[in-house]
């Protein structure tokens, strides 16, 4: 498979591998489009958004204060007192602030491949704001568990995600208790309600994070892994590290476990770690990750040769994500000039701001359009994360809404731009003659810009 011209590759580098071209980005990539991408792979991981800098532990402490304020107000007979409302608003502002900071990083970064790569992994290990408490920590989760590890070993990413308070809360692991544990025995003896297993995290690690649903594991494997994971929890205020990951030996189910035919005799938290270490290097995981990556970056129906290449890189390197990123960028199949991928709402919105060299000024300019298009900020509908298939996002109603967004955007952004130069800088060699002609013939700058933003070339990547 031969590669397209450097002009075309520069346009593909910015739009398919990156988050859409900022002014001058395509021109700057023309001498070495692949080199520009390879240079973004670095051991220290992703960039960090410039938010309020609060950690998960701080956020959870604040959330606990909020819950206590709420409880006190209720005890006083006030359904919603001012302090409760204030606290709710603060929580909402924080989540929105986290999202806006991330969006601004996406809009401004010169290392946009690094950011897209990061967003892929953040979505792979989804924590959704669909619970009030997880909304407070989705942002810190991504900063603490995902971003540092995106070019490291998959196993480290998996462990970081699976031991992070946000994930332990989102998938209900924090309270899971071994029925044969010391804590359960104590509860039983004292006539208290006895806690038990919750298999949610165990199942989603197997199905979504590692092996994939068709890997041949059984209900018994899920339950055994859930038993191994008991004790993975979060420190209470009175513990030494409040609101951080804590292994509770007294809720851990004692004894050896068997997962997918392999015995795990380890004690304590080492047991589930050992399971995760094996999951991370399983050929099923390699295939699952390779397929998903190829589908995300290149084509909803990924070329088998590309999947095979990524799979081989994963297996050869034991799941090294920097190697995997290099394998993707150097694969000729990834540079097919046909733009097979349809942008998700987030990708579309960010690429729009990038195209004019700007960033969203406020959450109120970004969140409503994403919610309207079905991608509410930080609120993936399930642990599977956001879908990235064209069929999901290219619904008739969604196109009408994208048009409305584009018109509104052009109404404030178009007047200072030369439409033809804008079209060229946004799409480079991907700009087709019909679109260039339509832009040139538009009645107004606004119309020209809206047409460009709504063109198949801009909507696709």
């Amino acid at each position, binding site marked *: 498979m031969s590669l397209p011209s450097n002009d075309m590759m520069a346009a593909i580098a910015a739009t398919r591998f990156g988050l859409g071209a900022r002014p001058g980005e395509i021109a700057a990539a023309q001498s070495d489009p692949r080199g520009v991408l390879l240079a973004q792979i670095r051991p220290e991981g992703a960039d960090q958004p*410039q938010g309020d800098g609060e950690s998960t532990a701080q956020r959870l402490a604040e959330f606990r204060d909020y819950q206590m304020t709420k409880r006190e107000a209720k005890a006083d007979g006030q359904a*919603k007192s001012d302090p409760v*409302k204030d606290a709710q*608003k603060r929580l909402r502002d924080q989540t*929105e602030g986290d999202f806006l900071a991330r969006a601004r990083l996406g809009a401004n970064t010169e290392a946009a491949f690094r950011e897209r790569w990061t967003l892929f992994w953040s979505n792979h290990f989804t924590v959704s704001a669909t619970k009030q408490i997880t909304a407070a920590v989705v942002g810190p989760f991504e900063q603490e568990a995902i971003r540092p590890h995106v070019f490291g070993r998959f196993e480290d990413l998996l462990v970081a995600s699976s031991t992070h308070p946000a994930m332990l809360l989102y*998938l*209900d692991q924090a*309270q*899971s*208790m071994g029925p044969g544990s010391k804590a359960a025995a104590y509860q039983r003896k004292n006539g208290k*309600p006895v*806690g*038990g297993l*919750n298999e*949610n995290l165990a*199942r989603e690690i197997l199905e979504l994070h590692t092996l994939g*649903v068709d890997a041949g594991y059984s*209900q018994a494997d*899920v339950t055994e892994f859930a038993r191994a994971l008991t004790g993975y929890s979060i420190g209470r205020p009175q513990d030494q590290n409040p609101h951080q990951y804590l292994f509770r030996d007294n809720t851990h189910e004692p004894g050896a476990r068997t997962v997918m035919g392999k015995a795990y005799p380890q004690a304590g938290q080492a047991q589930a770690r050992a399971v995760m270490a094996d999951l991370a290097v399983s050929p099923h995981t390699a295939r699952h990750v390779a397929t998903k990556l190829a589908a995300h970056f290149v084509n909803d129906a990924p070329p088998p040769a590309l999947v095979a290449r990524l799979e081989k890189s994963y297996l050869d390197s034991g799941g090294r994500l920097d190697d995997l990123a290099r394998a993707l960028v150097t694969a000729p199949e990834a540079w097919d000039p046909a733009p097979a991928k349809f942008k998700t709402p987030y990708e579309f919105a960010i690429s729009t*701001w990038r195209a004019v*060299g*700007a*960033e*969203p000024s*406020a959450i*109120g*300019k970004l969140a409503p359009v994403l*919610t309207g*298009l*079905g991608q*509410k900020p930080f609120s993936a*509908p*399930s642990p*599977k994360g956001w*879908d990235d298939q*064209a*069929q*999901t996002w*290219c*619904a*008739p*109603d*969604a*196109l*009408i809404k994208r*048009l*409305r967004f584009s*018109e*509104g*955007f052009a*109404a*404030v*952004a178009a007047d200072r731009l030369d439409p033809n130069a804008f079209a060229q800088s946004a799409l480079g060699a991907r700009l087709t003659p*019909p679109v260039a002609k*339509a832009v040139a013939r538009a*009645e107004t700058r606004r*119309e020209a810009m809206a*047409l460009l933003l709504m063109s*198949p070339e801009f*909507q696709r990547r």
Partner: protein
Amino acid sequence: MNTPLSRRSLLQQAAGLGVTVSFMGGSAFAAADGAMAKRKLVVVICRGGMDGLTVSPPVGDPDYTALRGAVAVAPDQALKLDATFGLHPALESVHALALKGQARIAPAIASPDRARSHFEAQDVLETGAAQVYGVGTGWLNRTLEVMGPSRVEALSVGATAPLILRGKVQAASWSPGKGVDETARLPTLLQDLYKSDPMMGPAFARGLETEAMAQAAMTGLDPAPTAVSADTTSMAPKSMWQNAVNTQPGMAPAAMTPAPQAIDTQRQGREAARKLGATLAGFMVQEGGPRIAAISLDGWDTHAGQVGQLNTRLSYLDAVLDGLNTGLGAEWRNTVVVAATEFGRTARVNGTGGTDHGTGSTALVLGGGLKKGGVIGDWPTLKQDALFENRDVRPTLDMRGLFKGVLADHMGVDRKALETTVFPDSADAKAVTGLV
């Protein structure tokens, strides 16, 4: 201006609640017989694994209370259906219909999938296939394919297109929001640009067509025409967009709009859900409007804190169904509604006040033309040796059998086409006949 806009903002809230609506089927059956041509079908997909033992608690089953512990519905709280079953107290409207013989339950129903994976099970529920990855199209779409020889209208309400109506028949879509002026230049220019794009072209054309229908449905809902025109004035979006763009990185954000005061979230949610049901009905009662619809309700995956969550979700489900029923008016007698989920949940409460992924669950069947009858399918009981894999409600009825029965008896779909095209490889799932 606040008052006329409130209906629409309620609908937008409904979208925020995880409610999406999709519908299909316009003049597809123009050639059909007079009575049959009015028949309508709505499928409600409850995503996340809806707990049948909470929807229709078998409070008369001797094992129910002990198995369920803290998440059991108290026998005196359940809305009584018969000696064994009640309905959850939030399902007031459904219960009122049940007393009239217009709502029934299938308490031990499941799709053929047994993997307990949300995503796999939803795929099977929506494709109608015998197993996952068998088929890439939805069974509602294939229903239209076999019924409508020409001019089949297909409409999806919601920002994303659900699998159940994906397929050969192009689905339009609509969701609460502001419309686009169809006569403006931009849509025309864009349609030209989309000519060579096989995906965006048809989707965009359908989106424009649907706007007109949406306007009619919304106007029908609210007799004051000012409501709609007040909204369309915001077609000039510049003011909303003022200062949308920071041209320099790191500029401070503009002041945020104050968050709407949350007074009583659940009551507002119910109201929004009811309006959504009524809007859907507003589409369906129009001449040439859609006759087949699908609604998605998210949020049923209750691994922890199940009691409160299901109380809220069920009150929304009840409100959507109530909105549909009242909005359809006289057409209710021509309508069947089926509410189903991808799988049920464990019979036993788990360690965290919730339940984990299970198998059998409850489907609700509603409609003005239903025949009176008891529960649909056999009740396997909750005895330990009756549980599926010693953990779940044992399914005694295949979901496809229920859908096949409704499509055949109510919609008049050809039986052979049902077996070969709509639900292939479903010979084991015998059609549930005699419901209407």
